[in-house]
């Protein structure tokens, strides 16, 4: 009887499960003459990402100023090809201005531990 009563109080579990499904990151790539090969935010990995999208990735950082590791691997397809990443965490901008992908010898990258808003 007691277990039945306590089981009823466990119902809020659904709250956390639902929260976990909601996307907390949104991204947008602005690009011209390049190919984005791989995109990583913490443990979330995307091959050949589209120009924009959203996903959930849990932040395990215990510090008040939380950080997330962001990695982009890109290639340059044309001379002067360029691209940048805009990233939102909980609908707030991670970068003040879109983060430029830095190209050298035809390969481009972003490899940053980014402070989350």
């Amino acid at each position, binding site marked *: 009887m*007691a277990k039945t009563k306590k089981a009823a109080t466990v119902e809020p579990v659904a709250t*956390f499960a639902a*929260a976990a499904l909601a996307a907390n990151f949104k991204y947008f790539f602005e690009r*011209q003459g390049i*190919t984005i090969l791989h995109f990583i935010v*913490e443990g979330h990995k995307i091959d050949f990402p589209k120009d924009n999208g959203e996903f959930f990735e849990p932040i395990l950082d215990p510090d008040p100023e939380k950080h997330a*590791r962001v990695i982009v691997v890109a*290639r340059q397809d044309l001379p002067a090809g360029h691209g940048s990443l805009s990233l939102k965490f909980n609908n707030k901008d991670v970068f003040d201005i879109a983060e430029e992908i830095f190209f050298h010898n035809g390969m481009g990258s972003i490899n940053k531990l980014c402070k989350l808003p």
Partner: protein
Amino acid sequence: MKKLLLILLISFGDTASAQYLTQSAEGKSSIPLPLDGVGIGIDIGKSELTFGFNNYERIFRGTTNWLIGVNLSAKNEEGIGNLFSTGKIVPAGLLQGFAGYSIANNNALLERFKGSDAAAIATNENVDKKKLFGGLKDQTILAVKLSLHHIKDISEREGVIAEMSTQISDIQDFASLDNYVKDYKSNDTAAEIVTFKKEFLERHSVNVALYTKSFRAITAGATEQLKSAFDNYLKKSVPIRATIFLTGGMNGRNFTRYLGIESSDLPKAFQDTLFKGGNVGLGLNLQVRNFWLGATYNYVSGDNYANLKSKEYTLKTTDNAGNQSLTAEKKITAFAGKYAKVATNELNLDLVGDFWLSDTSRLLANLYLRSSIFSRDTAYLQNYTNIGAGFYFIGNKGKFLGGLYVELPDINNNAEKSKPLAERDIQPPFRKLSFGIVTKFNLSAIFGFANKPAMPAN
């Protein structure tokens, strides 16, 4: 017409973009440029307006390997300068299409990254952090169990541990765990619950401190290792792309020829001439690392319009009536000289290197060759080859900062050699160099496969 063209030029002036990635003196290149949809370009100096469509950006998004595109351009062949100084208009148009196939080693580059130390470090960092967080959750549940002795009622204890275990197991991020733990029964003022919470939170605080220390160590270690591992991957990765395409098009030009005085009917000395030509050819673009080689080879059905000399004539007509006369003057701009349609072949080569100068600037260096060969009638149109180099400075977001080119026209002096000996003026190559400053450049440009090489001056 003059006013209309002027209005058109001013309207598009602010959004104008050059046609080609890098330019020869004639403003053409054999390196393809991306466009996702339709683009408009205008070259004010050449009074040229271009509409273009191609799907090249879709190839970079992996949607397709097939390349297709069309360019349509219209211009005043004599440029904007003559338009304003003399009102001379020689309308010319070009419709150019291209279709091809592009392949790249993107999958190999991706797989290479996934097998790299950099990817392993990033993956391990995340796995380690998730394991650490799992450990924190276990320690939190253990802290609940160790603090439960304050609650006397066994069934209530079981209820608390069941509820908290289930909740904590489902939590995926640190902030939610911390909030849940701190908020749990925070409004419950029962003495047993308050003392339970007090001990539990003390234990949780110790656990979090240990978790934080370990978490920071994992992050710092990965950050340190990732930098060199990432640089190593990038250094050893060689992007390669090959694009082959067929290109073909048609062009037209309307101009007035001066035929010479052969009768008393002077207006018959001028003839409106409509030239219709075309081209068909093959192109190849090859990228290795930060170097691009572009080549096109075309059969061209053309003419020797560029060899004609433009002159302004004044035709005076007088009407007599009794002892009075009325004189009217008409200015006619016409092109004099031997004229014929001549078929040729064209070879265009570009080598472009994209060099890093600093975090915010890059240099594009372009060596090029524009060659008109196998003239079917050298009496009207000589073969010629122009070579040149261009240098373009690019800022953030591909923004064009400025550039210049230098070109050596007709390196073999074929035009001079075709003249009678007394009229020849063969100059050393460096004395024929032409220079130009490029002030406008935009990567929202269009394929530039037309590649009509610049004619050497007569």
